[in-house]
Every structure is written in C-alpha cells, then in structure tokens.
C-alpha cells in the first residue's frame, strides 16, 4: 500500500510538472521571441507577413546600406495585428517597430481614421519613381505620402480540376461544385467577388449595393454549397484534395501549381480583386529615415526582382520582369507566369475594393460575421 501511495504521488507530481511545463513553455517562448527592439541605433525593426521575404534579401540590405534589421513575421491577419498595436499606439507609446505592412483597407484605417502613420521621408526614397503608375494614387493615400506597396496580389478562384471534373469560370460554377469549397475569411475578398458577380462597382462599395451579394453568400453557406471560411490554410487543402475549390490569393496558388498541376487559378469572368499590402511607418518610430531607406532598397528593380523570385506575388515595382529574366533559371520563368506578371488584359478585369467609412464598415463586418457563424 505504502509503495502504491508513493508511486501515485510521484506520478501526480510528475504529471503536474509535465503538464505545467507544457502549459508554461509556449508563453515563455513567446516572451523571448516577442521583443524585437534592436538596441542598435543604426537598425530598424520591421513587422511583416509570413512568406513575404526571401532568403538573401535582408543580408543584401545590410550589406548595401550598413543598416541592421530586426525582421519579425508577426502579421497573420490585419484585424489581429490592429488589435495588437492598438493599446500602445492609442496612448502614443512605442510598439517597438519602425515599419509594418498592412492591406489597403487597413492602411486606410491607419492613415486616415486613427492617424497612426507618419510620412515616409522623401529624401531617402529616390527609388519611389519606380512605383507602377497603376498603384501610385490609391484613394486612401493619393500621393503615396504615407505608404508604399510591399507587394500586390489578385483574389480569384483556385480549383483542383481532378475533383471538380471541369473548368471553373464563374461564381455560379464555383457554387455548383459538389465537393468541399471554401471562401476567404477576409471580408473584402469574399464579398468583393460576389459583388462583382452581381455587377456592382467595387471601387465605391455601399452596404445597400452589397445586399444581394451578401444574401447570395448566405444562401450558399446555409445550403452547404460553400463549406467553410478559411485564412491561408486553404493552400494545403487544395493540394491534398480536402478542398475542390476555394477563393484564393494568386501568390499562394503560384506556389502550389508548381507541385500540383491539377490546381488551377482563374479570375472569374465577372472580375477579381486587386489588393496591395502596404509598408507604413508608425508614428511611434524614431527612425523614419532608416525605415524609408529599407523600403527604398526594395524599390530598386534588381532587388525587387530577387524578392519576387522568392515570394511570387505581383511586384509593385516597374522593370521587375526584365530583371527576373536577367536572373535566369526559375526566376526567368516567373516573368512569363500570369500569376506573378499578369498581362494588361488580366489587370483590366481587376478592381480594388474602395474605402468604407466607419459606420458602413461596421455594417459590412457585422453582416459578414453573421454569415460566418450562420447555421
């Protein structure tokens, strides 16, 4: 009996320690990884999305400019990142970053609504002239005073033809797919494609205009025609056949089509959306000069081409296609890839989701949340 007792106690202690250890470890790791502030005065700290940086770019930047970089891939979702920086920036405190990269609509919120971006330093940005004219004057920052696109992409439909059995050309085709399908949990991408299918002008969205699109999406969800909402995780599911078709971002698909030729990407006949993720400098940063030099580096077509060869999204920099060809090998093939270097004809079918004021945005978000949790 006594021995049993002991062993039970030992067991409980050990289990407790093990479970406790497992529970505490992630937060400790997070605490260690979170502090990105570089003590060095001649260094910048940048937040970006995963998969947005090549293997050699940071070293090349350091070599070219002598500026150190703390680069953190801690942006997974515009809303989540906003919620993360809000408590500090609202009180005018530092967030330990000299630059972050957020999607158009969130850039609008940062620049125009909460005013947490400071102007880029023009003197440090000679390469700004290489910005593609199509991206030079968005409604949220007409002179690109506060922001420059890091990269751009298209939202369309990706499908696995082995599972759909036929080509997908329209939103109707997509809804009619019998296998599992998903749309994006990013509201503007999903609602945007439905609004375009509805023949609405995406550049001036209103809640009234989006009504039928929302209803159609809601019906497709409650009928089970669309199975789920996904973030980036649709990529793996399309490859493995867990999804037959999905609303998708071009760069993700560019990466999987190489491994799995059955996976295809199409801009629906009614049109797709074009978006950019934009580099900005938070008001709390004391190094706008260095941060501007950082973005300037990637506006040199040679550097932009190297970056594009890694991340395979559409570069906002003019002359990248020529530089990709000069790089040769796989990079040269990207110059002909319609997902990385879309033709003017494709670009003409794309629209940018226009800005929403605060009240309208809340109505859009609420309706979308309602549909996401429907059932």
């Amino acid at each position, binding site marked *: 009996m006594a021995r*049993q007792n002991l*062993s*039970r106690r030992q*067991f*409980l202690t050990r*289990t407790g320690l*093990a*479970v406790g250890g*497992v529970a505490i470890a*992630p937060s400790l790791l997070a605490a260690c990884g979170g502090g990105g502030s570089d003590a060095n005065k001649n260094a910048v700290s940048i937040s970006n999305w995963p998969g947005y940086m090549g293997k050699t770019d940071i070293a090349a930047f350091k070599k070219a400019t002598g500026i150190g970089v703390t680069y953190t891939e801690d942006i997974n*979702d515009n*809303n*989540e990142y*906003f*919620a993360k920086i*809000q408590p500090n920036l*609202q009180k005018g405190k530092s967030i330990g970053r000299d630059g972050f990269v957020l999607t158009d609509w969130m850039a609008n*919120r940062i620049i125009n*609504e*909460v005013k947490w971006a400071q102007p880029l330093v023009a003197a440090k940005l000679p390469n700004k002239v290489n910005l593609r004219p199509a991206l030079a004057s968005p409604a949220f920052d007409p002179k690109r005073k506060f922001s420059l696109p890091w990269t751009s992409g298209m939202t369309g439909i990706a499908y696995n033809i082995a599972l759909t059995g036929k080509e997908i050309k329209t939103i109707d085709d997509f809804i009619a797919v*019998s296998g*599992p399908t998903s749309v994006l949990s990013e509201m503007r991408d999903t609602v945007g494609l439905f609004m375009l299918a509805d023949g609405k002008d995406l550049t001036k969205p209103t809640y009234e205009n989006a009504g039928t699109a929302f209803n159609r999406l809601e019906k497709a*969800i*409650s009928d*089970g025609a*669309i*199975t*789920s*909402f996904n973030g980036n*995780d649709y990529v793996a*599911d399309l490859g*493995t*056949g*867990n999804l037959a078709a999905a609303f998708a971002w071009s760069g993700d698909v560019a990466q999987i089509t190489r491994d799995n030729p059955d996976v295809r990407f199409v801009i629906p006949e009614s049109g797709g959306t074009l978006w950019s993720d934009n580099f900005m400098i938070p008001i709390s940063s004391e190094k706008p000069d260095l941060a501007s030099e950082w973005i300037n580096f990637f506006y040199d077509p040679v550097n932009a081409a190297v970056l594009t060869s890694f991340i395979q999204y559409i570069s906002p920099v003019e002359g990248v296609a020529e530089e990709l060809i000069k790089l040769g090998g796989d990079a040269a093939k990207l110059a002909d890839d319609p997902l990385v270097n879309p033709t003017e004809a494709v670009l003409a079918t794309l629209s940018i989701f226009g800005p929403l004021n*605060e009240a309208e*945005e*809340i109505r859009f*978000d*609420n309706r979308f*949340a309602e*549909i*996401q*949790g*429907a*059932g």
Partner: protein
Amino acid sequence: MSAKIERDAQGRKQARYTPWLLLVPGLLWLIWFFYLPLYSLFRMSLSTKPSRFAVPEFGWAWSNYSQAFSQYGAQFQRSFTYALAATIAALLIAYPIAYVIAFRGGRYRNVLLGLVVVPFFTNFLIRTLAWKTILGNQGPLINLLHTIGVLGPNETLLRTPIAVIGGLTYNFLPFMVLPIYVSLEKIDPRLLDAARDLYSHTWRGFRKIIIPLSLPGVFAGSLLVFIPAAGDFVNSYYLGNAKTTMIGSVVQDQFLVQNNYPIAAALSFVFIAIVMVVVAIYSRLLGTEEIA
C-alpha cells in the same frame, strides 16, 4: 517553566498564522492574474464604445448582455451540445482505459500512464491539424469508411460536426483518464475480494463497488473535459464548417475583428454564468460533496 509556556503560546500563535502565510503566494497570484482581470472584463462588459476605435467607457450598459444572449443563442447552444457529446464520448473511452491501467496494468502501469500523457508533449494546435490529415479525403479513415459503406461515396468526415466532436474528445481525453485513474487506483482490492467471497458476480461487484467509488474521478474528469471543450474554438475552426461555429469563435471575432470589446466581454460572462449553473446542477445530481 514559564519559558516553556511562553514558547508554547508563541508556537500556537505561529500555527495560527501559518495557513495564511502559506496561502499568500496563491492568493496574490489569484488576485493579480484572475480577480483583477475578471473585474476589468466585467467593467468592460458594461461599457459602451462611442465609435469603433474609441476607448470603451464604463456606463452600466446591460444591453450588451441582452444583445450577446439574443444574437448568439444558437452558438451557445451548439457549444454546450458539442461539449456534452465530447464529454460523454471521452467518458466512454477513458473509463475502460483507466480501469485497465489501474487494475490490470501491473508493472506496465507507469508506462501506460505515460502513453496517455505523451500527446501533451505535442502542441494542441499541431494535434488538431494532425486530425485534419487523419480525417481528410486522402486519409486512411475515409477510404475504410467508404469501403465498408458507413459513409456514402460523396460523404466526407472533415468539416462535419462529427469531426469537431471527435477532435474535442481526442484533445481533452487525458483530462478524463487521469482523474478516473486516480480514483480507481485508490480502491482497496480487498473490497472486491470480499464481494466475491459473498458470491457477488463480477458485474455486480463492478456496479456496486467500483462505479460508486470512482464517481469522484468521473465528476472531476467530466468537468475538466466539458468546460474547456465548451469554450474551444480551434477544433471547430479547423475541423468544422461554417455551420459548426462555437461561442469561442464568436468571442474571438468580436474581440479581434469587430473590435467590439464590450460585447465580447459580455459574451464571456454569459459563458461563465452558464458553466457555473451547469456545474452546480451536475454536482448536485452526482452528490459528490466530498470533492466540492
């Protein structure tokens, strides 16, 4: 003589304060990391936000509660249904495991218990994602179920309520096994010998001795599974579909997407209240005063 009395008195005095001293670290921890956050969450749940990005202002806004309740009733109901199903499934799976380890484990007992705990060494998220592969259309399970005709040719497992409940059951199973094991292991085997001596057959002995004596473990285990399962959103996100959203996802969405902290806080409090009522009823039904 008097020195001894004095020492005794001092000793008694010390003995009186010792329990409080021992409680201090725990109490401080609870106050800082539980009661204060809970209080601030409560204030938040009664606050209003004049605009989306404004700092919420406290204002006895009870309407947040009625809104939380009326707007998300379906998700509350779904969360507790799934959690109940997962708890029952976990109990049915865990009880035999705990029984075998406690009574038939012999010298392999620690190894077997180790095996129950091993999945904990893997991150919760990774375990859930692994289930996605197991249940997926190219996984081994779906082929088997199609072959033996349990599922129709077009039916899938992934993104169904079954997958969500399965994931919840799997992820919280050790929390059921361990308390049941501890209560079974405490049972004196001589009680069973006595039952046998009195011509009770095995099943009756199990029913009259083992089950009642293991109820504290069952009680603790069910709560340890039910409560976190009801609040979970990872399983419904990765294994479910748009119609399996649980209340955890709604809270997450209200906090991080809508930036509507007051509603999110009210939802959290409604959730806590429901859990407390459920636990109170459950402990009354099971009559396990000794654990309470």
